[in-house]
């Protein structure tokens, strides 16, 4: 039986680690390569890097970070943020990323998912979606809307419909990031995660809102997520990856033993 995965997400800006709260007020908190090594040693299952570099001329810094990480950690890791083309995706793959996350550009051009799946394989093509709770309407019957540009732009697109479309186009995995929960540390959006996880046949990673170990337990059981993404919980040293995994295993969730 597959283990549930604990994934750490590192937001990287200009090659440095940052953490956002509700996507504003980002502040630098360290070196992403060092953090990655520490989490790897702690038994982390997977890593996600999100490049939040604003200027395109500094984007090559990220390729450098990816190469350094790939040379030192031997678990899967994915990279997202600003991936607009198959060329972007292929460059990240060559630099050593196992998977590439597409987000805004895929909403604007859904065929990007199909092109990436063709070029680097479905297993390496991850759709990351930023989701906002809204009143159900004819365009958003699920009560969840896709937002883009880091949460600043509404699309009028229904989150559930988008998840199904992305799967159809060849996405191999979906990251469901709740903008409402992001940075609150009050728990994942269970209802949203479960709705998406139950509807698709590909793995779903829950993102946004983790603050306590109980939150991971909830989203991996009640929320039907295959993996739980954590960020500030572990970045600031409140919890360790090892501690989180031991907690989950103790509550009967199948988790890979942290290797020491």
């Amino acid at each position, binding site marked *: 039986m597959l283990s549930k995965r604990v994934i750490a997400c590192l937001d990287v800006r200009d090659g440095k680690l940052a953490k956002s709260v509700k996507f504003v007020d980002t502040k630098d908190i360290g070196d992403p390569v060092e953090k990655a090594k520490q989490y790897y040693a702690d038994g982390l*299952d997977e890593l996600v890097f999100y490049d939040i570099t604003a200027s395109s001329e500094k984007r090559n810094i990220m390729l450098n970070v990816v190469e350094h990480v790939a040379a030192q950690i031997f678990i899967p890791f994915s990279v997202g943020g600003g991936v607009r083309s198959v060329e972007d995706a292929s460059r990240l793959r060559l630099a*050593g990323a196992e998977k590439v996350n597409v987000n805004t550009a895929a909403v604007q051009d859904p065929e990007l998912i199909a092109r990436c799946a063709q070029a680097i394989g479905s297993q390496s093509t991850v759709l990351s979606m930023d989701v906002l709770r809204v009143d159900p309407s004819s365009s958003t019957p699920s009560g969840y809307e896709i937002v883009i540009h880091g949460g600043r732009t509404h699309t009028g697109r229904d989150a559930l419909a988008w998840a199904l479309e992305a799967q159809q186009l060849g996405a191999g995995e979906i990251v469901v990031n709740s903008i409402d929960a992001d940075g609150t540390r009050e728990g994942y959006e269970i209802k949203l995660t479960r709705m998406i996880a139950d509807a698709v046949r590909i793995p779903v990673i829950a993102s946004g809102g983790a603050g306590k170990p109980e939150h991971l337990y909830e989203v991996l059981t009640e929320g039907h997520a295959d993996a739980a993404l954590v960020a500030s919980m572990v970045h600031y040293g409140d919890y360790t990856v090892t501690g989180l995994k031991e907690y989950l295993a103790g509550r009967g969730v199948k988790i890979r033993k942290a290797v020491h």
Partner: protein
Amino acid sequence: MITIVDYNAGNLRSVKRACDAVGIEAVFTQDADQVARAERLIFPGVGHAKTAMDTLERTGLADAVRHVVKRGAPVLGICVGAQLVLESSEEGPTPGLGFLSGRTRLLKVDDPRLKIPHMGWNSVRVERPHPLLAHLQPGDELYFVHSYYLEPSEAQHVYATTEHGARFCCALGRDNLFATQFHPEKSGPIGLALLASFARWDGKSC
């Protein structure tokens, strides 16, 4: 020195990096003659089995790999590289290299909660001892990502299994050939240890 077969199979750089990390000298090459002369060979693979097989045949790399297996040098297949050691694959479909009897089949699961591809960490059960699996402890997990599974027809070729919906083979081999569905290069310290063992392996199965 390990030679890694380069046929645009996606993960070869990861395999090379993992070898570097444990101090194993490894090179990758597209040159069939260089592959044919390999002292020991890693035959990786990610992606579509038929595309991979077509590329291998077209470039002469398939014959080079056949030659290495035949002359008894240690060979390690990974993922699609493992699937192609069997006679055929349903992905395409395509013939495989046919070093072992059996085929690669599409993974189907009845339980809607189980996802395809089989992606993530899963426990590997050793079914018969092998030098490359000697360091595994019961319950140890390795990293998988695949939608097709290995079905060798002879039980004696099955060295390890895992379970996703049903139990299936995830490591197979015979003599100097060993192959894994999981990715040692992405499986943390346990996977790196397997690569380190391969670098020292004499090519005998027990």
